[in-house]
């Protein structure tokens, strides 16, 4: 009679863990390759184009980097922001809704104040409006969670869909009041922002480094130090670890939760504003699923800010690379990136398991 059972282990070295993760990633590529091959696509060429985000043999490499950064900026801000929520064991999966809210309020400022104010005023105002509006959503969910123990996962989930229909309503309703749409079109189409509401940038040859990229990096570094060295960050780790202990230490769990979730949601709103200002308009699919991807990135990174930065780069390469690589194959589109992302996560979860458990065979009578 043979049987297997699991034992928790704590003897795995960092090197072994890294090896496990690398193995997981390799297996993911193999699985993805099988999918590709099944469609008659050469996985090696596809992966080459994907990993190099189309830089090889491209006449406009600057455009590739810009396209990659367009995906990277919202993703890293959202993931970092979500990790703040998750550190408090607050399951904010409302990234999508908060992102849309930010984008709508940024657009509101852009259309109303863009024509009368200069860029130096409009862009910050857009950011502030977006952060506040999204922050309010965070504030309300956190308030409900602390006061009534309302399930925050489901509340934020519902808000995602409600906000999706709000932006759809704005984008699909031709009306007198609707200044979000183009005047000169019969069909409802979102209008372009005025020139002053476009994200400014520094020209380096062909390449334009948008201000949002720099701010995103600053936010990431800022959140890292916020968690590591400030009293607020200390409070976040204590509340996340044990609310009883936090209360015992005289901390106001309400204040800390509401404040942190406000910041988390406000940052996601800001990401929405950046995305809107960078592309100069909004759309109903402006989020590009960044609210969901952010959850996965934050989790893959085990909520560590440096790891989030790294994983955000990798996922953005994956997503943008898939777009580029898929351009030459009609039978595949950017959804393949989602598929790969899911397979990656599963491989990492499996790698985690083998890092934490050992499978032991128990059988026979050959025991000591």
């Amino acid at each position, binding site marked *: *009679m043979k049987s297997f059972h699991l*034992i928790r282990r704590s003897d795995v070295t960092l090197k072994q863990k890294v090896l496990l993760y690398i193995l997981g990633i390799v297996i993911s590529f193999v699985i993805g390759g099988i999918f590709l091959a099944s469609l008659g696509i050469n996985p090696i060429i596809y992966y080459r184009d994907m990993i190099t985000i189309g830089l090889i043999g491209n006449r406009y490499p600057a455009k590739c980097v810009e396209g990659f950064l367009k995906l990277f900026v919202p993703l890293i801000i959202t993931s970092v922001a979500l990790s703040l929520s998750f550190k408090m064991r607050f399951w904010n999966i409302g990234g999508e809704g908060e992102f849309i809210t930010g984008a709508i309020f940024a657009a509101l400022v852009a259309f109303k104040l863009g024509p009368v104010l200069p860029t130096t005023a409009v862009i910050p105002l857009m950011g502030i409006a977006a952060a506040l509006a999204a922050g309010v959503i965070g504030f309300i969910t956190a308030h409900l969670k602390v006061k009534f123990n309302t399930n925050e996962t489901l509340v934020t989930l519902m808000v995602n869909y409600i906000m999706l229909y709000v932006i759809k309503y704005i984008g699909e309703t031709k009306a007198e009041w609707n200044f979000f749409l183009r005047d000169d079109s019969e069909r409802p189409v979102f209008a372009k922002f005025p020139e002053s509401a476009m994200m400014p940038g520094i020209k380096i040859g062909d390449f334009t480094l948008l201000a949002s990229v720099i701010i995103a990096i600053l936010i990431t570094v800022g959140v890292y130090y916020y968690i590591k060295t400030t*009293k607020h960050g200390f409070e976040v780790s204590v509340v996340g670890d*044990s609310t*009883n202990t936090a209360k*015992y230490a*005289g901390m106001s769990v309400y204040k800390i939760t509401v404040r942190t979730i406000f910041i988390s949601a406000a940052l996601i709103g800001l990401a929405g504003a950046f995305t809107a200002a960078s592309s100069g308009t909004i759309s109903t699919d402006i989020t590009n699923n960044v609210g969901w991807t952010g959850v996965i990135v934050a989790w893959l990174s085990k909520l560590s800010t440096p790891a989030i930065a790294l994983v955000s780069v990798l996922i953005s390469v994956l997503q943008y690379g898939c777009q580029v690589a898929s351009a030459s194959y009609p039978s595949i589109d950017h959804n393949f990136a989602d598929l790969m992302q899911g397979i990656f996560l599963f491989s990492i979860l499996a790698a985690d398991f083998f890092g934490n458990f050992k499978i*032991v065979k128990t059988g026979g009578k050959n025991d000591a």
Partner: protein
Amino acid sequence: MAADAYAIELRGISKSFGSVAANKNINLNLRKGEILALLGENGSGKTTLMNMLSGIYTPDSGSIFIEGKEVRITSPDDAGKLGIGMVHQHFKLIERFTAADNIWIGKKDSGFLLKNSRNKEIEKIAAQFGFDIDPTKLVMNMSVSEKQTLEIIKVLCYGAKVIILDEPTAVLTIQETKKLFDVCRKMKESGHSIIIITHKLNEVMEISDRVAIMRKGEYIDTVESSKTSEKELTELMVGHKVDLNIDRPIIEKTKPLLEIRDICIDKDEGTPAVDKMSFYIRGGEVLGVAGIAGSGQKELCEAIAGLRKIKSGKIIHKGENLVGKSSKQISELGIAMSFIPEDRLGMGLAPSLSVADNVMLKNYSDSFGFMVDRKKARKEAHEIVDQLSIVTPSVDTPVRRLSGGNVQKVLLGREIKSAPNVLVTAYPVRGLDINSSYTIYGIINEQKKKGVGVLFIGEDLDVMLALCDKIMVMCHGKLMGVVHANKTDKEQLGLMMTGALNLVDAKEGKTAGIAKDSAFTPEEWEEATDMSEGGSEE
């Protein structure tokens, strides 16, 4: 061989968790129809060993024989089939189910459809074993001893021949313990073999035929209960000679430091937890609080520390009312609280944070500016680690990686570091081995000598009788009386804990729990010069 075979025989059982060896090469046997006490300190591996018999854990190596035949137990199902039943320390009951359904889940011949007659059937089976239960009562509405009875009926129902009881008396009163022992003797008469896990020596002597002793994961010896003494058992258990006496230094007591008058506190659900209690603590004394678990001890601690709303009544600290003050203000006044909850890590410590971070938990906000002062915290942590000889790789190690005793030392150490004048400590030795426990008692006495008033909420009456100056008994949130530790005994305390004896009502003309020299009225304060007479409980 088969005729005089043991009910259970373990040979060379080993089990480790990660790098920690919980059981090392254990040999143990259980005779048919005997009561075997399994004695050992917390962390000596008793429960782990028994969990391997009940199929919760699988041994890494070694073999198990039942009535001479080698068997393999890989799941609770296997154990059940072999006639082994275990009553776990933390009951394995489903709170939302009825008594009958809790038993029904594990019945082998329960059929596909759920018959309404199952209630009657269960009641009948229980009656066969001599128990009278209400099969439709929900577990969540049961008392602790009712739940335990249900657990015992459960294992009997499934036809267990060998019954393992894990620390069954930890949650019971003296009277309930007696009842349980009667049940055990009856089960023994009807041919069952019983293993009782415990670390209480007096119980071992009372109930068992033989005692098996474990220490630090190793099997030490098995002795006949009738041919041993508590002293011998302790030495076997601890591994060296120990002085079982707890010190009780006599300190000159000062005026009441903390006076609690007519205090009422609600539980989370809004039902009363503490009902009109009055008592006081003097500087230089240890006031013990005895009571069955959940009698309002936790709520009382939290209220004193400012963590729970006080419905009515007053808490006077050196003449100043504490009611309405924040926990921060209260701790600045020198009132420190350490509470060890059942899971040991839930309150007072953040398990994933480092020792240093936990040390600065209460004063992190004192430093200037927006940043935390980790340098200072690490310095303080080093001091506490040195002072209380805490075993930890570094002050940056997460607290959850420390052993239980060291965790508790960190907690107490932090509280003492703030130089309190009142120390509220609840279950400070919960789950600790004897040596660590004595270290903790030493720390408490140290504080007492400094003139600190200590409120000691405890579980073990023997310890409280030895350590405390006075003992206050609570039952269902009501004060049952305050007695001098050297003028009472366990029997009396047990009666008070169940509410059978109420010394508060018995007193005439005096209000229990109010000091003669209360800070309330300065005139009385002047008169009360003779401190040794104590309060009105005399």
